[in-house]
């Protein structure tokens, strides 16, 4: 079974982003970029499934600018076999990415597609579900455990209030939650090997997908600042302040 894993290049999760002074967006020039953390978990899960023998080939896919190649090389250093970059300078929104991935799913016919549950830049949490809808495949989102057997995936999902287990027939779309696994570190020899692996580049036009954004960003602003608080010397003062000043207890 082939697995397709979608990875996104995002601002590193440790970076505290700043809103541009003209309110057109977030300043990401000269900021460290990395693979979206949930996508690392997705690649790791694909590699573990391959190590268990449930998967024969792992294809990593990324959509975006030319630099996404670095993200794909990282995926191949973790263990993906080859990569496809859908290259475009256009702003890509989840619906467009889902359509691009749908075109690749039609072409590659994977038995499973694994994505992260959300990207930490746009915080959308949409692409996996949209891909499932467009490809008319079942979905198992927010996965914390995946077992493949008898043409089905049994997936434990993180839901409000606990866990839920669903069984989906393959092919299926799975999106990863944080606790699915702990991604391995890439080693230098694997980084070197990844440089030799196959990386194909296609354009959205080649896939016949219109990626024009549907949502227009009018403005990006700083969130409301909290007014500076005070430090209290002891518990008694804290309780007194909460009772008389804040009146919350």
């Amino acid at each position, binding site marked *: 079974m082939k697995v397709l894993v979608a990875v996104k290049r995002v601002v590193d999760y440790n970076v505290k982003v700043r809103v541009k002074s003209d309110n057109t967006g977030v300043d990401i020039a000269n900021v460290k970029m990395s693979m979206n953390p949930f996508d690392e978990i997705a690649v790791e899960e694909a590699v573990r499934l391959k190590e268990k023998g449930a998967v024969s080939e792992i294809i990593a896919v990324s959509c975006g600018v030319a630099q996404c190649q670095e993200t794909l090389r990282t995926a191949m250093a973790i263990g993906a076999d080859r990569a496809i970059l859908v290259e475009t300078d256009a702003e890509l929104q989840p*619906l467009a990415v889902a359509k691009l991935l749908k075109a690749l799913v039609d072409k590659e016919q994977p038995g499973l597609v694994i994505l992260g549950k959300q990207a930490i830049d746009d915080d959308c949490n949409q692409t996996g579900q949209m891909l499932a809808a467009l490809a008319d495949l079942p979905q198992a989102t927010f996965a914390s455990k995946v077992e493949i057997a008898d043409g089905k995936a049994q997936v434990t999902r993180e839901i409000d209030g606990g866990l839920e287990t669903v069984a989906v027939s393959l092919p299926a779309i799975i999106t990863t939650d944080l606790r699915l696994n702990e991604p391995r570190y890439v080693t230098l020899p694997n980084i070197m090997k990844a440089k030799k692996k196959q990386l194909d580049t296609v354009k959205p036009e080649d896939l016949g997908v219109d990626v024009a954004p549907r949502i227009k960003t009018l403005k990006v602003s700083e969130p409301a600042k909290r007014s500076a608080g005070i430090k209290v010397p002891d518990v008694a003062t804290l309780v007194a302040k909460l009772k008389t000043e804040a009146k919350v207890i």
Partner: protein
Amino acid sequence: MTALVIAEHDNASLKGATLNTITAAAACGGDVHVLVAGHNAAAAAAAAAQVVGVSKVLHADSAALAHGLAENVAAQVLAVASAYSHILFPSTASGKNVAPRVAAKLDVAQLSDVTKVVSSDTFERPIYAGNAIATVQTADAVKVITVRTTAFDAAASGGSATVESIAAAADSGKSSFVGSELAKSDRPELTAAKIIVSGGRALGSSEKFNEVMTPLADKLGAAIGASRAAVDAGYAPNDLQVGQTGKIVAPELYVACGISGAIQHLAGMKDSKVIVAINKDPEAPIFSVADYGLEADLFTAVPELVKAL
């Protein structure tokens, strides 16, 4: 112009998140209808009919809808979607699961985690873990939206809408419910609690977590939350996690004990009315958002606080 709210329920009763979503739907302008898709969920449909601002409840009943499987619920929503200009889901695990599936089938973009309705086509939503607020406009004919429930008040009860039974969509047959494991708790629900006491990695073990946090929560009638570090270390179950990847909360009082305040955690709680931080590290970032900061060892300060209350 009519908005459809997809109710979150457990078949017996309506979940609180539905009420906040109804308020957001009303802000879009026009009538508000509620879809209750479930199995033997007449009680939830009746409860939805009593919410102020709701003019009609659609009730679809089928065994295939019992567990809210995305494939089946999305098909149910799509069966009635053509009558609506706005389709709103609460931004909960189940809302996030189904909404994008509906949007993609309608070939429209989806707006996630909306925190403010500016006008019927313009909305505010946080990006980059809440470090920026984007004002976005959609040109799509149908607006599919998930609503950040803590950003909207809950709609009151006292209405009297009609309940209309509609035909249930067929089972997709592609997925099935196997089972669930829900954390038992008699505390207030995290996302609805007025007071939350939250513990971090500094607690050191799950025994200490319970030993220190539970008396404080009991005393305040509070829900217990946790940072990702505490959850990953196994000190607390994952459904207690507050943050970008866990629950987004906005209680009146949030007490952070032994939590440093990583941006991913702050994204989940910085809209709380009053924030108290108890931490022995004077440099902890949590102090930059806390209204009241106490620089102390939580193992002595928290029991002292319990005693003082």
